[in-house]
């Protein structure tokens, strides 16, 4: 499978690289840009990024394996991230996560992100999203949702077409 970066994305990446006096520093921002476009970071994407930044593939691969937000496999079209940490847990985050899993036919006790068979949804617990005053909170892709009741959760899922 050939990996091709479209010209406009490459232009965006080239611009990002100019923000740093050392190319390597652009790694995270380049990986974000690639993931936003392709949905995940493949082995080819790692190699492409390394070449672009004049690095060894391992220098990029070690980032992909470290940072929780970087994905090594394709995820669902809608990624539901429920905050798991204390304030949200006190506000019902475990119940909310279970609610999503049951609604979408996933295992509430399984570890890590889980994707529905049709590839539409990925559900996972994430650590503190820094909005503890409006617990429980969650994200669907880049959209942030606060004080999510089960009814609100159903609405959010309903809006995902």
């Amino acid at each position, binding site marked *: 499978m050939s990996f091709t970066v479209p010209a406009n994305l490459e232009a965006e990446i080239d611009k990002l690289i100019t923000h740093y006096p050392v190319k390597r520093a652009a790694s995270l921002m380049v990986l974000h840009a690639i993931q936003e476009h392709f949905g995940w970071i493949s082995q080819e994407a790692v190699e492409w990024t390394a070449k672009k930044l004049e690095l060894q593939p391992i220098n990029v691969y070690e980032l992909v394996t470290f940072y929780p937000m970087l994905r090594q496999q394709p995820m669902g079209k809608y990624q539901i991230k429920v905050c798991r940490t204390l304030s949200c847990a*006190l506000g019902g985050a475990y119940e909310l996560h279970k609610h999503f899993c049951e609604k979408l036919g996933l295992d509430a006790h399984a570890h890590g992100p889980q994707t529905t068979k049709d590839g539409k949804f990925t559900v996972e617990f994430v650590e503190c999203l820094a909005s*503890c005053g409006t*617990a429980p909170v969650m994200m669907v892709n880049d959209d942030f949702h606060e004080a999510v009741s089960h009814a609100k959760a159903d609405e959010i899922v309903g809006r995902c077409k």
Partner: protein
Amino acid sequence: MPSEYRLILKYADEPGYTPDIECYLRHGGYDALKKALALQPKDLPDGAKRSGPEQIRQEVMASGLRGRGGAGFSCGLKWSFVDRKSGKPIYLICNADESEPGTFKDRQIIHKDPHQLIEGMIISCFANDVHLAYIYIRGEMPDGARLLNRALQEARAKNFLGKDILGNGYDLEMHVHRGAGAYICGEETGLIESLEGKRPYPRIKPPYFPAVLGLWMCPTIVNNVETLCNVKHIVAMGGTEFAKLGTPNNTGTRIVSLSGHVKKPGCYEIEVGRATIGQLIFDANFGGGLRDGRKLKAVIPGGSSAKVFKAGEKFKIKDKEVDMLDLPYDFDSLIQAGSMSGSSAIIVMDDSTDIVGALANIAEFYAHESCGQCTPCREGSLWMSKALHRLTHGEGRAQDADYLVKIADNIPGGRTICAFGEACAWPVQSFVAKFKDEFVDKGAADEERRAKKSKGAGPGMEMKLAASQQH
């Protein structure tokens, strides 16, 4: 009854206040920057001259401003450590990686008033001869990153950033850098490694003090969002005037993030030390009390790594006995009481809370977030989390309480490169010390239940390894 004192969040929640530059300018925005850039060199009695940037640094020192990120270290002192003679460029990084559980104050500033942060940063950069600065924002705040990028563009268009700022001859460029979901990037040397494009493994100090060997081995200042916003106000009002806010050695205001079991969770900005923990939880101006019919059980006073306070706990401070709720919310009192105000995040737990479960939740966070560099932290945080998982899933033992403390005691105290070791050990040490009965009882109940279920299997059971000699 104390009330809020809004300095940083003055306009943030006003109806109609928007994050764009026009709105900010209508509210006196960038006036402090103009003032800073216009400072004339001052003649000192000994004939020397004090430049504008030096004067700003002196004002920040006089203000007594302490870092709002967690450590509470003097900002003026931090700036004074910067190696200005090396000939290398000096960098400034805004730490917007807000990720200490319980904290959500920087989010308010970034989303509602991003230009205030940028103005504070430009002034701080000018004061420290910085020409390239970064805002390191956590990856989970994509909207915040977009808002900041837009605000930077607006500031560039008005020549508050870029070449020859407002004709002063000063050049500064600033970029947004996004993290990708790792708590350890909030640790300043981890943040620097991350910004350099590496895994965010914290650096060992000495020698890698950011003020001398920071970003690309150049002198670097890393300040929290709220701290940098304060610099704008220090320049606007003067350091001595700023120091009149709050209490001695605990000057200015702090944005307290209040969450958990209170009626009105949210961000409350107070003069440091001018409200007690009890007032923040119970007063109508702040948290408005617990949910109806509930009693207070525990309070985490400074983000999840701060040592927990138990309801009714008393401390001896300056020879006076003080109840936990009567502690003034400031830097020093909380340290004297054996905990810390950290990132000024209060998490309130009422009597419905399963304290063992709460600690299990915190321990799982730290086990997930340890960078893995140092063995005591990497292994210890995971062992503690596993023991607590067992204890909350019916597989506990009465001795688990002591086991947990034994692990926790062997992580901090110079055994790890960064303070994460302390951060993961303190909750375990304090929860178990203050609520030991609950941990022991839970483990004992599990043991008893297991013994009954297996009809006598357990510590007292006679073992039979092979068939008896006599058939």
